[in-house]
C-alpha cells in the first residue's frame, strides 16, 4: 500500500440541520484512496456515502450542512477543507473530478454538449482555439461516443441516458484528473448500459493511472470494478477490505446480511434472508453499535459500546463479534 | 423528542393563572404565542370595559349589527380562553406530536416559522376582529353630519382621525369602510376561486376538446381589461356592492383556472391516481378525493393574494365614483372626497390610504408565507 495515499479522509463529520435540529449524516468516517486504485463505498440510502463524497470537494451546501471541525480531507497531504476558494476551484475538475447520477440534470440542457466540455477544457488546460475543439472530439471519442465530431454539436436531450453519462465522464476527464469520484454513476441506467459504463470507467482508470472513488448502493457494481470496498451504515464505515475478501468472508453482520438478501442466481427459489427492520434516520440513530437493533447476533455489549474498525480474518470490521471470536 | 409540551408550572400541572390570564404561562416560557394570546385577551377586555355603555345601548336597541358584534366578542373571548388553557383539556399522557401529522399540519408548523407571515396573519386577525366589533368600537355613527361645528377638524383626542367635509367622524367611517372592503374582497375571491377551480379541474382532467374549448374561453376572458370592463358594466347598470362583487369575481377566475389545470395535469399522472382508477373509482370520486385535495395548495396562495387585489380594485372603483356610493363609507370613496383637500385636510385621504396599504400588505405577507409553507418539495 502506498505510504502517502492520493486522497486521505480522516474522521469526517458532517452535520445537517432541519426542523428537528442538527444530526450527523456522516459520523467519523475515514478512508483513503491510493493512486490508480478503485475504492468502492457501498451503502443504502441515508448512510451518508454521497455526503462523504461531496465533502471531499467542499460541495456540501452550508447551510443546512456543516462539516464539523476535526474532519480532514487531504490530497497528497494538502488539506482541502481549509483550502482557499480559489484553490478549491482549481482542484474541482482539475486534480479531482466528479461524475453524478442523473446525467440529464448534470448537463446543462440549454448548451450543446461540446460547448460544455470545451468550457471544462479551457478552464483546466492551456489549450485555446481549435486545439480545444480537437480535444473535445478526442475526449468524446475516448468515452465511446460514435461520430464524436457530430455529437459534440448535439444538445443533451438528443442523447440517450448512457450517452449522456459518457459525455459527463468526458467532461470530467477534461482536466486530466488524478482522482475521479463517481456518485452512483450507473443507477439511472439500464443494466446492459451499466456494464459498459463501468467497463469504460475501469479502462480509463488503467489508461490514465487515475484513481476511482465509486459510490453506490449496488454490490454488483462494486464487485465488478472495485479493488477495495468500504461498507457504510448509519454514517459510519462498518467494514472495509479488499473486494474479493469482503465478498468471500464478510465479517460484519450487515455486510453478510446484504449479501444474503440478494437473490442468488445459482440458488433460485430459496427464501431470501432479509435484514429485519429498516434503516434509521440520522435523528434516531441507536446507541452503541448502530446496527444492533437489526442484528440477529447482537451481544449485550453492542447496545452500549460503539465499536471501531478491528482486524478480522479477511477484512476490517467494526463489530464486537470480531473481538469475541477467536 | 417533542418540543411542544404542555406549559407547566413547577408543580407539573397547568398554571392556574391561565384561568384569569390565558396564555400567561406560555408567556413565561418565552413563547410568542403566549404574548399574543394574553395580549388579545387583555385588549378585548379593555374594549369591553371602555365601550360598555355602547354595548348596553346596542343590547337595548337590539340591532342585528350590534348583536353580531356582541356575539363575536363573546366567541372571541371564549376562543382565546380555550387557546390559553388547552393544556388543561389534554388527556393525560402526551401523544407523540409527530404521529398523525397531516401534511396541512406540517405546513402550519412551517408557516409559523416565518415571522413576517405570522405578523401579516396577526394584522389580518386584528383587522377581522375590528371588523366584527365595529358597532362596539366605532366612537360615532359614521353617517351623522355635523355641518355647524365639526367640519374638517384635524385629528384630536375627540376625533382620533379627524372629521371629513361634512363633519362625520373619520375613524368611524374608516372602520365601517373596512367592513365593506373586506366583504367585497372575500366574496369576490370566493366566486373567482370556485369558478376557476371548477373550470380548471374539468379542463385538466377531461383533456381533449373539453380542455381546448375551456382554455380558449379563458383566453377570451383574459383579453378583457379588468378595470375598463368594471367601469363599463357599472356605468350601464346601477353601481351596488353586489354588482361589484359579481364583476370582480367574474373577472378574476381565469388565473386560478390555469393554475388548477396545470396542477391537475401533473397530479393526474401520479400513481396514486392510477391506483384509484384501478380500484374502480369513477371520475367524480377520483377528482374530489384524490386529485383536488392535492391541487389546492397554490389555489390557497392565489386566493390570499387575490383578496388583496380585489380590495385594491374596489378602492379604485370607489375612488372613481363607480363603486360604493356615498353616503356609504368605503375606503375608496373617502380617499376620493379627500383628494382635493390633500393640502389642508390631509387626514381624510391619508388614513384610509394607510388602511389599504396595511391590509393589502398583510394579505401579501400571508400569501408569501403560505407559498413557502405549502411548497410540495417539503412534503416528504
Amino acid at each position, binding site marked *: 500500500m502506498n505510504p502517502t495515499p492520493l486522497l486521505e479522509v480522516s474522521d469526517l463529520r458532517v452535520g445537517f440541520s432541519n426542523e428537528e435540529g442538527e444530526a450527523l449524516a456522516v459520523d467519523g468516517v475515514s478512508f483513503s484512496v491510493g493512486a490508480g486504485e478503485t475504492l468502492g463505498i457501498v451503502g443504502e440510502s441515508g448512510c451518508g456515502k454521497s455526503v462523504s463524497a461531496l465533502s471531499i470537494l467542499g460541495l456540501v451546501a452550508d447551510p443546512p450542512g456543516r462539516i464539523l471541525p476535526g474532519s480532514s480531507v487531504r490530497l497528497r497531504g494538502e488539506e482541502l477543507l481549509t483550502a482557499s476558494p480559489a484553490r478549491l476551484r482549481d482542484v474541482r475538475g482539475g486534480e479531482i473530478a466528479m461524475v453524478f447520477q442523473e446525467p440529464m440534470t448534470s448537463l446543462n440542457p440549454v448548451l450543446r454538449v461540446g460547448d460544455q466540455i470545451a468550457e471544462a477544457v479551457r478552464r483546466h488546460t492551456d489549450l485555446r482555439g481549435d486545439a480545444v475543439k480537437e480535444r473535445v472530439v478526442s475526449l468524446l471519442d475516448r468515452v465511446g461516443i460514435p461520430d464524436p465530431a457530430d455529437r459534440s454539436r448535439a444538445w443533451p436531450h438528443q442523447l440517450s441516458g448512457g450517452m449522456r453519462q459518457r459525455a459527463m465522464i468526458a467532461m470530467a476527464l477534461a482536466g486530466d484528473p488524478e482522482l475521479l469520484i463517481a456518485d452512483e454513476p450507473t443507477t439511472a441506467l439500464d443494466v446492459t448500459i451499466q456494464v459498459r459504463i463501468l467497463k469504460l470507467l475501469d479502462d480509463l482508470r488503467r489508461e490514465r493511472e487515475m484513481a476511482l472513488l465509486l459510490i453506490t448502493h449496488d454490490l454488483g457494481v462494486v464487485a465488478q470494478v472495485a479493488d477495495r470496498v468500504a461498507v457504510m451504515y448509519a454514517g459510519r464505515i462498518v467494514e472495509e477490505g479488499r473486494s474479493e475478501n469482503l465478498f468471500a468472508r464478510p465479517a460484519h453482520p450487515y455486510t453478510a446480511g446484504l449479501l444474503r438478501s*440478494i437473490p442468488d442466481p445459482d440458488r433460485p427459489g430459496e427464501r431470501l434472508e432479509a*435484514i429485519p427492520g429498516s434503516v434509521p434516520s440520522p435523528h434516531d440513530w441507536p446507541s452503541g453499535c448502530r446496527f444492533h437493533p437489526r442484528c440477529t447476533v447482537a451481544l449485550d455489549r453492542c447496545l452500549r459500546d460503539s465499536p471501531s474498525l478491528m482486524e478480522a480474518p479477511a477484512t476490517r470490521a467494526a463489530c464486537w463479534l470480531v473481538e469475541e471470536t477467536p | 423528542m417533542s418540543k411542544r409540551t404542555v406549559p407547566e408550572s413547577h408543580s407539573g400541572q397547568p398554571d392556574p393563572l391561565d384561568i384569569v390570564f390565558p396564555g400567561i404561562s406560555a408567556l413565561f416560557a418565552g413563547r410568542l404565542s403566549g404574548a399574543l394570546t394574553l395580549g388579545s385577551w387583555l385588549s378585548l377586555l379593555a374594549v369591553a370595559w371602555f365601550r360598555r355603555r355602547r354595548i348596553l345601548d346596542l343590547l337595548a336597541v337590539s340591532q342585528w349589527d350590534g348583536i353580531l358584534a356582541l356575539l363575536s366578542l363573546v366567541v372571541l373571548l371564549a376562543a382565546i380562553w380555550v387557546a390559553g388553557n388547552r393544556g388543561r383539556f389534554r388527556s393525560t399522557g402526551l401523544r407523540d406530536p409527530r404521529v398523525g401529522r397531516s401534511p396541512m399540519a406540517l405546513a402550519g408548523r412551517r408557516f409559523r416559522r416565518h415571522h413576517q407571515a405570522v405578523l401579516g396573519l396577526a394584522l389580518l386577525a386584528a383587522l377581522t376582529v375590528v371588523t366584527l366589533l365595529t358597532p362596539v368600537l366605532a366612537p360615532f355613527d359614521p353617517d351623522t353630519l355635523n355641518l355647524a361645528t365639526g367640519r374638517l377638524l384635524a385629528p384630536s383626542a375627540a376625533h382620533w382621525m379627524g372629521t371629513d367635509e361634512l363633519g362625520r367622524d373619520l375613524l368611524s367611517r374608516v372602520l365601517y369602510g373596512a367592513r365593506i372592503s373586506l366583504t367585497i374582497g372575500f366574496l369576490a375571491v370566493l366566486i373567482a376561486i370556485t369558478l376557476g377551480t371548477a373550470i380548471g379541474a374539468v379542463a385538466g382532467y377531461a383533456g381533449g376538446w373539453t380542455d381546448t374549448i375551456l382554455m380558449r374561453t379563458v383566453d377570451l376572458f383574459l383579453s378583457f381589461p379588468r378595470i375598463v370592463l368594471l367601469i363599463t358594466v357599472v356605468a350601464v347598470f346601477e353601481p351596488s356592492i353586489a354588482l361589484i362583487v359579481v364583476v370582480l369575481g367574474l373577472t378574476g377566475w381565469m388565473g386560478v383556472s390555469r393554475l388548477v389545470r396545470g396542477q391537475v395535469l401533473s397530479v393526474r399522472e401520479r400513481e396514486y391516481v392510477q391506483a384509484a382508477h384501478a380500484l374502480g373509482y369513477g371520475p367524480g370520486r377520483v377528482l374530489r378525493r384524490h386529485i383536488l385535495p392535492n391541487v389546492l395548495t397554490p389555489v390557497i396562495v392565489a386566493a390570499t393574494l387575490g383578496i388583496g387585489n380585489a380590495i385594491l380594485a374596489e378602492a379604485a372603483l370607489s375612488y372613481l365614483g363607480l363603486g360604493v356610493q356615498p353616503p356609504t363609507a368605503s375606503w375608496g370613496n373617502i380617499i376620493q372626497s379627500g383628494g382635493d383637500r390633500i393640502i389642508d385636510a390631509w387626514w381624510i385621504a391619508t388614513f384610509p390610504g394607510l388602511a389599504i396599504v396595511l391590509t393589502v400588505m398583510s394579505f401579501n405577507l400571508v400569501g408569501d408565507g403560505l407559498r413557502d409553507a405549502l411548497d410540495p418539495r417539503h412534503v416528504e
Partner: protein
Amino acid sequence: MSEPILRAERLEKRYSSGRSGPVGLRRSVQVDAVRGIDLEINAGETLALVGESGSGKSTTGRLLLGLEPPSAGRVLYRGRDLAEFDRAAWSTFRRRTQIVFQDPYGSLNPRLTVGGMLREALTFHGLAGDHCTSGRVTELLTLVGLDPSAADRYPHEFSGGQRQRIGIARALSVEPELIVADEPVSALDVSVQAQVLNLLVDLQVELGLTYLFIAHDLAVVRHVADRTAVMFEGAIVEDGPTERVFADPQHPYTRELLSSIPRPRAGIP
C-alpha cells in the same frame, strides 16, 4: 386446459407525442410502445415481464389491466374481451385485478391516512360494513407486516419499504386474484427488497394469488417467476419457463441481458 386469467392478443399501443419540425412541416411523432404482443397468464403462476427502460413492459401491464385502451389487438379476461365490458363487468374486473407500483413515494395519496385510504376501498366495494372496516384494516396491515397503528398515519411518516407494504395492502383490500407488480422493489434499498420480495412470495402462497411481475432485475426475476417473457423495444423476444430462459436463452438480447447480471460473489465479474 383451463382458460388463462389474462390474455393479450396482438396487443399494440402507439403514442403520438408532440410535433417535430418547423411550422410548415410539422409531423406527429409516433412512438410504438407495444408492438403486437401475445401473452398469457395462468391462474396461480407468476409471470415475469423483463426488459429495460423503453421496452414497453410497464405499458403492457397497464394495457392488461385496462388502465389504458390498446391501439390494436385485444385483452381477454377469462375469455371475455375487455372492450366489451359493461359497468358491472368492469366493477368485477377492478376487484379481481390490482396493481402495485414502483415508486413508493408517488403511489400513495399524501392527504389520506393509511386507514382512510383502505377504508375507502373497502366501503366502495361493499366489502365491509362501516362498523367492520377497522377490523379489516387491522387485518390487512398485519398481513403485510405493519403495525395496526399505521392506520392513523400519513404516507410521509413511513419509509420506502413500508410504503410499498401499504401499497400492497391497498391492492389486497379488494381481495383480488391477480396482481400486476410493476417493478415493486426496484426503488427500494437492497436490505428492504428482500423483505418485500419475501412478503410477495408468502402472500402468493397464502392467498393463492397470480402475479404479473414486471422487472428489469434478472436476479429478482429468477427468484420469483415461474415463467419469464423478455421484452425489447415493444416486442416479446423470448418467452418460456424461467429456468429454460436462463439456462438456454435463444434470443441474442436475452443473452446480453443475462451476461449483465452483476454478481457480488467472490469478486467474480
